[in-house]
């Protein structure tokens, strides 16, 4: 591979930041230029991101396009990037949303334009960084750093009650992730002996692997068999649940799962269109991604024990979120709660631990990013025109905004998972995976699986109920309000912004296979890693062991991109 390939991810991640510097130099008055530069930045980033997505070979090693150099090696860190299938897909989603977000905000944001676009670019960098970082602490840094620009987006350019929402969002997510930090440090210490310690994903996972296997082996045995464990396994036996809980809490808040979801409606309602789009499109996925990449693989046994509980929460989230929607008068709040419901599907698919479920969940992440992102985008257009979020203030819009209505209805169908749209594939796979899963067995009675499945499927009905209810209230009926009679339909810019979403809805609905192929490998690995925790499951170490490139010999030298020989990888980066 060329120098370019080794640095592709660096490029994708930091390109927005570079352009941010450029924007910084522009005079604040030059709104047009600032927008143009930001838009170009996002476009270029999209190009590189798409390229990275294409470069990712489904059949290849787990992590590709790796790049790793020394960084804070005294603290056991290294600057390590790389993508697996899921990360690549989410990366594509992120870079896809980038330019559209800029387009969506061209007229929405009227003041402090420069700061706004700076925040957007920085946010893009942090999100991409969190997706591609293979050093857990690096991930954490990006994971937390992305709060700052989002916090500003909500707080500065948000609606009337923005400050409360911004602070709530920030603190809510921070509390969880700080506890995770402690757990993370603990894992750092227990995962490998002094001297060999590193925050690198591979060394952390591989360090815990054997202990996890011992643990699950003894959990299969008679009760009390685990008390005879020694060393790391014993530690995991005692503290694994707590560590897992810390991780799970952090990510559950981010997802958000019921009952730690209450920051989401406020943040969404107050955020500007760009904020809502990114929040729904990408940021929530950080939670599911975290479960997938860190929480469950690190502590498969604890995860296994917590599975029924978390799956129950997910199902509750599905139904509860949908019911919440029925009680809303505020359109953005409704869409926000629908996110709770949709993300419930994602979590359920993850905890189903079946190929269908996990892949469906990953696909649902992308779908949700597209459909809900588009819903927020479209509503943003409406809000720009009317500056109200209450359904009661609309009605009969279809008469004056036919094209807008068509777009909205199409996206609505995708959101309620009508077959032929992308939403269907994800939802169908998740539900199928749930029905095939052993959730019930994990919960004590195999037949409970049916209960999980049936309740989750209820979301299908409720979803249609609340979305169409909203559509009817807003678009159909007579034009009761005078203000609405002179609304103008979407202009070209707005159509161009929506079009990609609509196209993707169709494409991902009818030709999902290319996307699924890239997700599949990381699904199988994820399931194998999670299966380490199921008592009596036979998982080969080779299946689950994380293989990454070693650290370069001399610091700050570009690492060789070909995966290092196994001998080099067997021990994680040695600390001098």
């Amino acid at each position, binding site marked *: 591979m060329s120098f370019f390939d080794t640095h592709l991810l660096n490029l994708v991640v930091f390109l927005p930041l570079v352009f941010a510097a450029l924007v910084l130099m522009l005079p604040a008055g030059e709104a047009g230029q600032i927008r143009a530069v930001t838009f170009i930045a996002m476009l270029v980033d999209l190009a590189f991101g798409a390229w990275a997505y294409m470069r990712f070979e489904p059949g290849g090693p787990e992590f590709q396009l790796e790049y790793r150099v020394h960084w*804070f090696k*005294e*603290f056991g860190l290294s600057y390590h990037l790389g993508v697996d299938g899921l990360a690549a897909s989410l990366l594509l989603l992120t870079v896809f949303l980038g330019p559209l977000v800029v387009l969506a905000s061209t007229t929405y944001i009227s003041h*402090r334009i420069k*700061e706004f676009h700076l925040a957007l670019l920085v946010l893009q960098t942090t999100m991409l960084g969190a997706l591609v970082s293979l050093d857990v*602490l690096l991930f*954490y*840094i*990006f994971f*937390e*750093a992305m*709060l*700052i620009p989002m*916090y*500003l987006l909500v*707080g*500065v350019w948000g609606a009337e009650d*923005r*400050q409360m929402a*911004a*602070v709530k969002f*920030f*603190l809510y997510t*921070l*509390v969880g992730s*700080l*506890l995770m*930090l*402690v757990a993370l*440090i*603990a894992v*750092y*210490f*227990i*995962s*490998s*002996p*002094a001297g060999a310690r590193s925050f690198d994903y591979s060394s952390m996972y591989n360090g815990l692997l054997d202990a996890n296997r011992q643990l699950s082996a003894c959990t299969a045995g008679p009760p009390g068999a685990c008390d005879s464990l*020694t*060393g*790391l396994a*014993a*530690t995991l036996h*005692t*503290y694994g649940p707590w560590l897992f809980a810390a991780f799970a809490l952090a990510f559950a808040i981010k997802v958000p799962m019921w009952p730690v979801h209450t920051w989401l409606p406020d943040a969404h309602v107050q955020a500007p269109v760009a904020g809502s789009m990114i929040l729904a499109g990408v940021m929530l996925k950080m939670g599911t991604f975290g479960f997938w990449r860190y929480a469950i693989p690190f502590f498969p046994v604890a995860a296994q024990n917590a599975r029924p509980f978390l799956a129950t929460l997910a199902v509750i989230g599905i139904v509860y979120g949908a019911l919440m929607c029925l009680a809303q008068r505020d359109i953005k709040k409704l869409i926000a709660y629908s996110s709770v419901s949709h993300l419930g599907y994602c979590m359920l698919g993850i905890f189903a631990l079946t190929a269908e479920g996990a892949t469906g969940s990953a696909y649902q992440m992308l779908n949700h990013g597209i459909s809900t992102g588009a819903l927020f985008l479209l509503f943003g257009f409406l809000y720009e025109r009317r500056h109200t979020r209450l359904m009661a203030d609309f009605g009969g819009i279809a008469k004056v905004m036919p094209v807008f209505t068509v777009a909205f209805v199409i996206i609505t169908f995708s959101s309620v998972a009508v077959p032929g749209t992308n939403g269907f594939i994800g939802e169908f796979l998740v539900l199928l995976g749930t029905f095939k899963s052993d959730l019930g067995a994990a919960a004590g009675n195999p037949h409970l699986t049916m209960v999980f499945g049936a309740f989750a499927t209820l979301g299908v009905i409720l979803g249609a109920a609340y979305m169409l209810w909203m559509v009817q209230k807003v678009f159909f009926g007579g034009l009761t309000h005078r203000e609405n009679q002179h609304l103008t339909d979407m202009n070209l810019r707005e159509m161009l912004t929506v079009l990609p979403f609509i196209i993707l809805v169709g494409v991902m609905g009818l030709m999902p296979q290319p996307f699924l192929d890239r997700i599949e490998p990381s699904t199988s690995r994820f399931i194998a890693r999670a299966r380490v925790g199921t008592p009596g499951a036979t998982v080969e170490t080779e299946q689950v062991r994380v293989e990454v490139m070693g650290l370069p010999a001399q610091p700050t030298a570009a690492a060789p991109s070909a995966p290092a020989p196994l001998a080099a990888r067997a021990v994680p980066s040695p600390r001098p």
Partner: protein
Amino acid sequence: MILPNLTLADFLPLIPAIILVVGACILLLSEVFLGAHASRSYQAVLTVVAAVAAGAMAVANMFEPAHEVFLGFGVLDPFSSFLTFVVCVGLGLAALSSVSFLRKRGAERGEFYALMLFAAAGMSLLALSNELITLFVNLEVLSIATYALTSYLRRGTRPSEAGFKYFILGAFSSAVLLYGAALLYGATGSTKLTDMVGPLSSALATQPALVYAGLILLGSGFAFKVAAVPFHMWTPDVYEGAPTPVTALMSAGVKAAAFAALVRVFLTLGKGIDPHLPLVLFSTLAFLTMVVGNLLAIPQRNVKRMLAYSSIAHAGYLLVGVAALFVTAPGEQFRLLGPSELTGGSPVELARSQALRGILFYLLAYTFSAVGAFTLVSVLERREDEEKGTAWDLERFSGLAQRRPGWAVAMAAFMLSLGGIPPTIGFMSKLLIFQSAVDSGLIGLAIIGVLSSAAGVYYYLRVVVYMFMRPVPEGALTLERSWSTELALVLSTAAVLVFGILPGPITAWLQQASSIFGQ
């Protein structure tokens, strides 16, 4: 009567202090030749030069092998040199920020900078003193200088009040410390820390009460200087009343020096006694300090006072690191990570050096963030409002982002760094502290720490909210800029952001500095 034969090498560690003192003397002398209305900005320059020179010397010393000097009254080790460096950083930044501050109040007089320099000298000497009386004297040198600085501004009631409180309580606490020193001397028959270790263990057997009382008294003396709850009560008032640059110096330098002395004394004496005592002592202090400091800061609308409370909270985090120093076997204390620590955990030395590293890096990080923050507070305040007490009100920050985006970003960086949000230096330092805490099994403290820091983020964010999300109030006073303040802000912002991502040489220094003499 034998005169000790001192080689030149013995003076090596003193050089930074000497530079500072010389600078001070030059300033005082130069005052003689100046008219009342002559411009005095050169004094700040001189101070900064002295600080830089001293800092450079300190860095140079940092790579000397650790050894005793002056017959063991002082030591030269990277630890003390690093602290001197930190102190000089604080001094330089504070001096830069005081130029326009003093000019605004027409209070430019040479003794201000001279006192600053004396105080800094006292700090750097405190960091390396290895004998109780020397330690006491140096402590007094820096204290007396700071007493004077605190009540330096004559107008208004606040400075004198602050000075009074600081002085009375400071004298009180140093008396306590001294009494403790006396008792320990009685128990061991020596005041040199290194010589006390041996007798201490035997004295512990014969007259434990004496030893314990001495240690407790000593400890509370230090606890006062580092403003640990419940010895913190003076802090908010003094910090509020003192001239803001002085507050900055206090929050950075005094704290750093005090921690240096604390760590040195208790590490050295700790070898002589059951380490359980200091562990419990400092864990308790850390717990109280973190929680109470943060809780008290939450309701503050007065930013300067809020920062004062937050500095208490930060002392708490530092104390977590100190507590981690006294865990003899990793994980043995709370067993929160279970027996596996014996396999997985670091050996004591490694854990200890990690803790030291954490403390030192935290001190540096805090210096940058806090001094920067106080600098910004100082440029926003106006003397006329001080009596009304509105000089430091949150309102001052409303809409700062529109008026001075640069300042707003800088302040935001300081706030996030104080709150420990990546990618700032504050995050890295907190990470190191909690890392060492977890490594020594002080998980409980670590969790309390992160939770209380989450609470802390609330009031830090409030400042950001006012700066970025509030409109500019009518009749907001004009913000004049001055090169020195801008420089100070730029430097500290750059440090806060860059060292948070690329530590540069600092990690190497830290590796060095975490080796303390006698450890």
